[in-house]
């Protein structure tokens, strides 16, 4: 019976057994690691290839997207563009206070000439200006 402080020391450090000749076999397998590694180790081209493929895919997406965008925007004339995007200004001209709450500010009175100049600047057609002139 082993008791007290000695119990720990008495057990010793016996090693579990291994198959006979195991360490020679293990060493033989380990010696072949450099040769095996050279066979399976990818060269520089193999390492770079996935990154190049990723970059090429990204470039292709950008080019195709750009081509599609150009194709759809070139069919749209500038008149259509102004026709679709000028309406928002009507509100600010007729009653800017709705958007900007200018009613309490001391805003300088807008003259007819100011209105006509503004319409010319925003690309309103001459026929529309003539119609506006008739109204006055």
């Amino acid at each position, binding site marked *: 019976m082993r008791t007290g402080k000695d119990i720990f020391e008495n057990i010793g450090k016996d090693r579990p057994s291994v198959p006979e000749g195991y360490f020679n076999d*293990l060493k033989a397998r380990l010696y072949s690691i450099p040769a095996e590694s050279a066979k399976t180790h990818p060269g520089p081209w193999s390492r770079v290839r996935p990154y190049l493929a990723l970059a090429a895919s990204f470039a292709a997406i950008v080019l195709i997207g750009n081509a599609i965008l150009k194709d759809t925007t070139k069919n749209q004339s500038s008149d259509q563009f102004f026709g679709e995007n000028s309406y928002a200004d009507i509100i600010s001209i007729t009653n800017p206070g709705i958007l900007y709450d200018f009613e309490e500010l001391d805003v300088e009175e807008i003259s007819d000439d100011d209105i006509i100049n503004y319409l010319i600047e925003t690309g309103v057609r001459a026929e529309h200006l003539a119609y506006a002139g008739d109204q006055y």
Partner: protein
Amino acid sequence: MTDKEILDLYQSGQRERAFTEIVDSYSERLYWHVRRFLCSHDDTDDLVQEIFLKIWNSLPSFRGESQLYTWIYRIATNESLNFLQKQKIRTALRFESISSKLEEKIDEDTGVDGDEAQRILMKAVQRLPSKQRTVFIMRWFDELSYEDISEILGTSVGALKASYHFAAEKIKASLEKNIK
């Protein structure tokens, strides 16, 4: 061949010969080091090969800031702890505990001879917290100095001595309880 001679050999371009010398110097020592962690001949055999593959692949980046000896032991220890960590996750997914799994391996391991006390000792070691187990294996079984263990694990000598003391006390208690 000394570690310095091995490194000189490697730096002179004889890389494969240097690696052969590393295998000759360290394969058996690392086998026993890893086996104390893994408690299984088959797992140890697989992991030792992975460790030497890692050593071969990492040798070009070895800058000589630490000794070759401690660098190799650091790789082996980290790989062993990573292996156990993966096993811990696997066993947790099956609602088992890693220490009971390792105890089963100690019982199943045909390499462990009939000495019941050795079995109880190994089981007690596996029940230790990871840090204490690592320090105990390196100090008691591998007989590394505290200074070398400190360099391998990046822990102060004082902390290592404390860990070893607690580990040894727990193991003594376990042995006294289980050995009649």
